[in-house]
């Protein structure tokens, strides 16, 4: 039995070049990596002023949201069995920003009352900033399957 012989055959792996490669790769990845999580809010474009499609019977129910410059949001519902347009005003918060929480509860109320409403069209005053529009669209999208933006 030559037990001592096994120690003489010990192989020492040279890890230095691997470490070098790893250092270069990690540095490259850290420099080029984007740590922002980008996502998207999907919307379709609807044409303002387009003639409504001619359909037999009642026109389909539609919802239109308008974001005002001061932060108020007007919700207008029309079509279906409604004889006249229903307008709901969601007042802005004290700092002139949109009251998104109230908007959500109003939209849920409307959808439970008229489940036929499946989409909403969003428009805004010319001075309303994109951030507020996206926030509103995102909230509407959590309730309505399809959201349009007016062009």
């Amino acid at each position: 039995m030559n037990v001592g012989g096994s120690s003489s055959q010990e192989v020492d792996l040279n890890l230095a070049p691997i470490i070098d490669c790893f250092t270069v790769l990690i540095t490259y990845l850290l420099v080029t990596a984007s740590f922002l999580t980008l996502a998207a809010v999907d919307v379709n474009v609807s044409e303002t002023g387009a003639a409504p499609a001619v359909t037999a019977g009642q026109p389909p129910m539609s919802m239109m949201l308008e974001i005002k410059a001061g932060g108020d949001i007007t919700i207008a519902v029309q079509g279906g069995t409604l004889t006249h347009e229903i307008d709901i005003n969601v007042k802005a918060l004290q700092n002139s920003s949109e009251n998104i929480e109230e908007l959500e509860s109003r939209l849920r109320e409307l959808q439970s009352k008229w489940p036929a409403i499946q989409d909403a069209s969003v428009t805004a005053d010319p001075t309303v900033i994109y951030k507020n529009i996206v926030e509103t669209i995102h909230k509407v999208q959590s309730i309505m399957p399809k959201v349009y933006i007016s062009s």
Partner: protein
Amino acid sequence: MKAIKKKRKSTEMSLQITSMADIFMILLVFLLKNYATSMTSIAPTTRLTLPEVMKATEQVQESLKVEINRNVVVVDDKPILSLNNFQFAASETSNGDASPTLENIFAHQRKLMPVPNLGSGLVVMADQQTPYSTIKRVVASAAGAGFVDLQLVVVETE
């Protein structure tokens, strides 16, 4: 001399880098995994602050990209139109809702698509301070050329 040689051998130090290699391996796997899912191709080329939204679920699909910032509108990574503090020049606002230059560019881009008139997606990256009037003009120009499915790019927050 022999004594000195022996002494030198005994003080030789070998750095134990196996654990370091392990750490590097874990780091590398983590970074590679994140790198694959990060959307580097849709990173904005111009300086703009994207709006933040909580829990946006949609992933950004590869498609024609338009960027709007305070000074310029960029289509497909090429600066197309100059803006003056988000406002279009008078020549671009005289023709209804759309901008003639942008409409031509979008129509040209549509012809360049592998299957023209099939893809209608447009990735919109706009600064969070952009007024609706500017967004509306860009959207109307894109819609005129058939890009009606918009993806508004946002930064997802927890």
